[in-house]
């Protein structure tokens, strides 16, 4: 099943020319959001994916609040650094699953198939 990519979704809204890029609507309609084609094999990995996505929402909110006071404060820098760290971890997981077809829990689950984390994830 082919799902539209974000770039195509953005194209539907406004052309990407120069500063027009910044006039795009910030929240995309849910139906056009990209969904990763390759999904987690084990429940534990699915849980990690969801946890990371939630953490991104949380930490972006936190950083926005902290930086309202002073954009150049240490707290503001650290808050956005945390957002970056979690965003990168989320992206790493996505790449492992999509590009490399490796579930990080693969080897752990070979040894411990009875744990809750190692239940095969079904959509």
């Amino acid at each position, binding site marked *: 099943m082919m799902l539209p990519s974000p770039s195509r979704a953005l194209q539907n809204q406004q052309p990407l020319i120069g500063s027009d890029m910044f006039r795009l609507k910030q929240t995309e309609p849910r139906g056009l959001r990209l969904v990763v084609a390759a999904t987690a094999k084990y429940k534990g990995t699915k849980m990690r994916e969801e946890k990371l996505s939630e953490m991104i929402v949380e930490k972006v909110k936190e950083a926005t609040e902290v930086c309202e006071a002073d954009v150049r404060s240490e707290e503001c820098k650290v808050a956005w*650094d945390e957002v970056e760290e979690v965003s990168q*971890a989320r992206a790493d997981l996505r790449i492992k699953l999509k590009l490399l077809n490796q579930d990080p829990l693969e080897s752990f689950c070979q040894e411990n198939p009875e744990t809750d984390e190692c239940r095969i994830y079904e959509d």
Partner: protein
Amino acid sequence: MAVSTIYSTQALNSTHFFTSSSSSKQVFFYRRQTNRRFNTIITCATQQTVVIGLAADSGCGKSTFMRRLTSVFGGAAEPPKGGNPDSNTLISDMTTVICLDDYHSLDRTGRKEKGVTALDPRANDFDLMYEQVKALKSGIAVEKPIYNHVTGLLDAPELIQPPKILVIEGLHPMFDERVRDLLDFSIYLDISNEVKFAWKIQRDMAERGHSLESIKASIEARKPDFDAFIDPQKQYADAVIEVLPTQLIPDDNEGKVLRVRLIMKEGVKYFSPVYLFDEGSTVSWIPCGRKLTCSYPGIKFNYAPDSYFDHEVSVVEMDGQFDRLDELIYVESHLSNLSTNFYGEVTQQMLKHADFPGSNNGTGLFQTIVGLKIRDLYEQLIANKETAPAEAAKA
């Protein structure tokens, strides 16, 4: 695996001295023979690990650069089996890739308390980094900490065996002078701000927590620490891969077509820079024309000697994209000093990872070439170590 050399020396009762390095173990077999004046000595040198440093602000363990590099040596790099599933380490037959985030001295909570980002040297234990890289280089296994990027905590250490090639990847491979001196080769991946922004948009826009503003704010907030602590490392690198927006499309800001420059330091031992047509000259080359047809925006190459932070360098630059296989092989056939084992090896390696980002532009091309250069460096280093004991005996 031990490398052994067998050679003969003159009789022990002659006034003959030879020195052995502290890392070699020697076994003497003394045989008294009347018709011969030579004794046989078998020397086994313990393995010396080649250490490569890669500075990149793109996280660890997934970077396609690492995968291209390990692929040049054969075999896929995988996380250690049966260990912590959140390990950042990658292991293949010949190489082990260590993520320098594992040497964080402060976990996420600790950094928040102290008000330091992960980019700040105060969040990293350089003493431990130095000790462990030094130990691995001398062939000693280490218990290396694990920094868990999901929980933000420091997990229990994992055992790392000394590999043939150790790659240390992260934000600070060249920050500490002692660690720098251990590196046999170092690379800095220098992404320009515009390209970084475009890549982070591609990376994060699908996440419901993110918006263009949050992505922009995150980059801006990290910039002061990045410029102060990470960026200055590029002056120490033997090779810098600089990624810039294309000059072929006016006002392009999609960041899809890229201009990539491979800046290679001159005079580095075992490293001979790649060149185009005539070494040391300045060449501007557009391969598309009568023999090769390319689609828009085409491909443009530049080669020239230059100066970079007071060092002499050679720069090969590619702007544009590969559309077809024959463009890639055409370009490969005109580049020199690639250190390939056979004609078409660069193309073959690029095709192996055709689905990786950068496979159709200079990032993939130069990452692959740097991988081949590292293989060449490794082979020369090993060959040199094997001849060294024999030469000591001849002296």
